[in-house]
């Protein structure tokens, strides 16, 4: 995918998520907002827990492994220069019940990706944003 990824505008809420992959964060970690009161997870990140409305929330590093909940093989070049086909998937994260991430599955052919495949995060940096992509765990 040679074209640049559309870049999220960073703010106080989303910066830990989009910059967690920087190696200076303990080698690069996936951060999801966790509640210090009820223990539940909130994604997209906010300054309130969506389960108990507590403000005692903070980004917490999670294992970065998961399972493919669903996927689509995208064949349409939505932007000039976008190389197709590629896999868009929804990954259910281990240890983070109720949170899924929309992402790309990289590092294998598109027809090698299936429901329930085990995957692991891998970061792709572009202009100070670390995009969490996933690759299959062999």
């Amino acid at each position, binding site marked *: 995918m040679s074209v640049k990824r559309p870049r999220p505008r960073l703010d106080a809420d989303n910066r830990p998520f989009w910059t967690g992959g920087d190696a200076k964060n303990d080698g690069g970690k996936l951060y999801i907002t966790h509640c210090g009161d009820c223990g539940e997870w909130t994604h997209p990140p906010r300054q309130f827990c969506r389960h108990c409305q507590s403000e005692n929330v903070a980004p917490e590093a999670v294992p970065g492994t998961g399972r493919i909940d669903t996927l*689509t093989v995208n064949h349409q070049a939505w932007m000039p220069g976008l190389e197709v086909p590629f896999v*868009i*998937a929804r990954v259910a994260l281990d240890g983070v019940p109720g949170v899924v*991430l929309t992402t790309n599955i990289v590092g294998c052919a598109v027809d090698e990706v299936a*429901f329930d495949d085990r995957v692991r995060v891998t970061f792709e940096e572009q202009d100070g944003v670390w995009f969490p992509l996933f690759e299959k765990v062999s």
Partner: protein
Amino acid sequence: MKEAYITGVGQSEVGVRLTRSPMGLTMDAIRQALDDAGLTFDQIDGVASYPGKAHGYLGFSPIGVDEVIEVCGIKARWHMGAGEIPAQLSAIAEAANAVKTGQARHIICFRTVYEAAAMSRPDEFPPLRRDFVDGSSQWTAPFFAISAACWVAQYANRHMQRYGMTREQLAQISLNANRNALLNPNARAITKKVLTIDDYMESRLITTPFCLHDCDRFTDCSTVIIVSAGDALDEVSASPVRIAATAGAVHRHSWDQAEWMASYDTGPDLWAKTDYTAKDVDTVQFYDGFAFFPITWLEALGFCQVGEGHKFVEGGTRIARDGELPLNTAGGQIGAGRLHGFGFAHEAVTQLRGKAGERQIPGDPKVAVATSGGGPLAAALLLARD
């Protein structure tokens, strides 16, 4: 409380890359709806639209409610142009609430779309910027899941995985849309020839399981629905259709975090508000921006069990014009263009009045459901001819 009725419908020319201005199309549809209802501008005291003028992406919604008030010289007692409502048809639902509570007597509800023309004239209508994303799209666009097709395809793929839906079953939505659109004079710019299952299976893939024929296409058009109070019907010449119930529920407002689409929250809520049941419905006009949506609406509204929508449409006979539950009789958005929700209300009223010409369904239909939306957007209208 008063009742609310749809008393007039109008639709401008429907086309791709039209040169008539967005306000021109809007005025064409408004005049047609006023003529249909037998009303004049001085009787209109409310205006509603979804989602309001889209500054920054004018093709999506080029005309604001305030412009219509100004151009038409309406002395408005109530108006609303809003995007943070359940879905497109919620503009009509809110207008119904307004006339029921005496805030207005006759409300023009409109939806003008201009995406095809806008893309062909980028100097006049700058395209949406893709380099920076914020809001909810920041969770999908960075992974090139830029179109809603990519988001909805994942729900459709899961339906295949979990419940065994096949592409042949999904295809019935587009084949049915094509058959009906060929009988709709307003769909001539969108649907020109017969679509066969072979054409469908051989067409190029957009994002699996969706092929080209599973997606609606950008269209230029304005559709108008006039909503009137029950105690103002003596001012109206057309046969009114009652808005018997409306719903728009959402339990998780996210395109990717929700296990189910909001249609599944909205369907049961519609029936909770009325004595009618799914068995009373003579025709359904279900949002089909993508072919999978009508299958979800069939399940969500209880026309079949969850996980069996694809079996309901199999072979296409049940949903055909002469079937037990005629679906998208004007061609839906796949066959008749991306009118963005309002086309479904327009067609439901047209069928209930018996004015659908060659595509009129048999059996003197009295009750219809029109819906719009997918993902976290969902709105449903239950319409009845008393």
